[in-house]
């Protein structure tokens, strides 16, 4: 845990309003991005931020909350909230655009920065288990290390690697990737 996190946590446990504000300023954007990338909805993503930090405040207020790894703790709350949102919606069918490569060469240059394209990726993620989804997003979208991901998921590194492999396999099936 960085010195910054340690100092903030210490002051937050005393319910120092300035520290609580700094925590919010430091992490709210990342939590929003994490939620928006999965939900694709600005209002829902904002709700996720609101609920994540509300639960954080309640935990700190009652003497609970993180003792260390503040970032991982916040992401866990956000992940649980997002998982609840997923449970309320059935997995949508995956509609893929230009998914079938004709000669084994995948041209991806034109497939990025498109909201519709990202929607198809989100739908594919919907088919993963919550833990598989969390691994994929933390490792490859948030670019966390194995150690950071393991801390957020409260698992051993080996378990995270196994989850990651299974998640990629499932995604390949769902997205119907056919590559030589």
């Amino acid at each position, binding site marked *: 845990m960085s010195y910054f996190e340690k100092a903030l946590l*210490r002051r937050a446990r005393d*319910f120092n*309003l300035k520290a*609580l*504000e700094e925590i*919010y*300023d430091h992490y*709210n*954007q990342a939590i*929003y*991005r994490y939620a*928006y*990338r999965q939900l694709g909805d*600005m*209002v829902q*993503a*904002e709700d996720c*931020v*609101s609920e994540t*930090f*509300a639960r954080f*405040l*309640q935990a700190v*207020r009652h003497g609970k909350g993180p003792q260390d790894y503040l970032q991982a703790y916040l992401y866990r709350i956000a992940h649980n909230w997002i998982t609840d949102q997923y449970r309320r919606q059935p997995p949508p069918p995956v509609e893929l655009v230009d998914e079938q490569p004709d000669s084994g060469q*995948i041209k*991806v240059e034109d*497939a*990025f*920065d*498109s*909201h519709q*394209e*990202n929607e198809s*990726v*989100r739908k594919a993620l919907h088919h993963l288990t919550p833990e598989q989804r969390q691994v*994929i997003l933390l490792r*490859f*979208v*948030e*670019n966390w290390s194995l150690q950071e991901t393991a801390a957020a998921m409260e698992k051993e590194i080996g378990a995270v690697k*196994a989850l990651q*492999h299974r998640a*990629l396999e499932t*995604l*390949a099936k769902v*997205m119907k*990737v056919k*590559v*030589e």
Partner: protein
Amino acid sequence: MERNPKNEKFILERLEGLRREQRRSASAAAGTKQTYMARARSLALGVSKTEKGRLNQRGVQPTLTGPLGKEHRFAMKALISVAIALAIALSGFGLTAAAAQSSMPNDALYGLKVWSEDLRMALTSDPEQVVDLALDLATRRAEEITALTEEGVVVPDQVRVRLELHIFEALQAFTRVQGEDVEPTMLRIQDQLRTQEQLFLRLKDGTGCEDCEPLLTQTQEMVQGRLELFQQNQGDSTMIQEQIKLQVETELQLQTNKPEDAGNTDGSMGSGNQYMGDVPADLDCSTVVEGDEYWEYCLTVTPGAGQQNGSDGNDNGGGKKP
């Protein structure tokens, strides 16, 4: 388990597209932060004196002069220096007005504090800013009620009346908010009401001051009544705004009609401004009957006052809860 590097490359490149996408409404983001800070401030009010006096991590009571209190001593000195510099720089009236901001009900300068708040409200026109200011003032009233209750002092009813007024002002301004600002504004108000409801419930349960309980109960029920406006059409901000607009208009109409028809009120507005400062702090509306000096005042602040005092159940009985 066999890996397929080409599969992985394809998937990871798709995920890269997801990583690059991000859209966020600046006003919604600001609203979420405001809600968070309002919640933090309200929760901070509930930190008990025991908790404030708890030991630090080294098991020592921090003091201003002890080795663990150096940080506090330095901060206090800096604060005092700033306060002195400000005091010199300000004019007489400005200094008095600034000093009034920390005054409590029953203090000499409290009237000036209230006046300056009303002035700020009168000078604010943007609906969202009015909402934020009204919520801020409601928090101030909650702080005053908390501080007095914890000291075992019965809170003057005018404080509760002003709290109710601030909440009404927030709701009234909310009805004028438009577009994508409706949802975050609604959430801010709703969170503030939830936090206040919890605060007054906690104060009611925790206070050893029996005389404080009636006001705390009344305040908590008032806040709860307002919160129900948001819970009736959960999730639909447009519907909620419409319902609140209707409620506000109804209450304003009742206020307008009140001088002509004293019995026809549901007691929900409760601004009672005309009585500000004149109502005895220990007034018990349940003992006030029609014709008494404070009869009309009690009708505005006590739901069901008309029925409590034996009025018949006809159309003019009023006394319905909001």
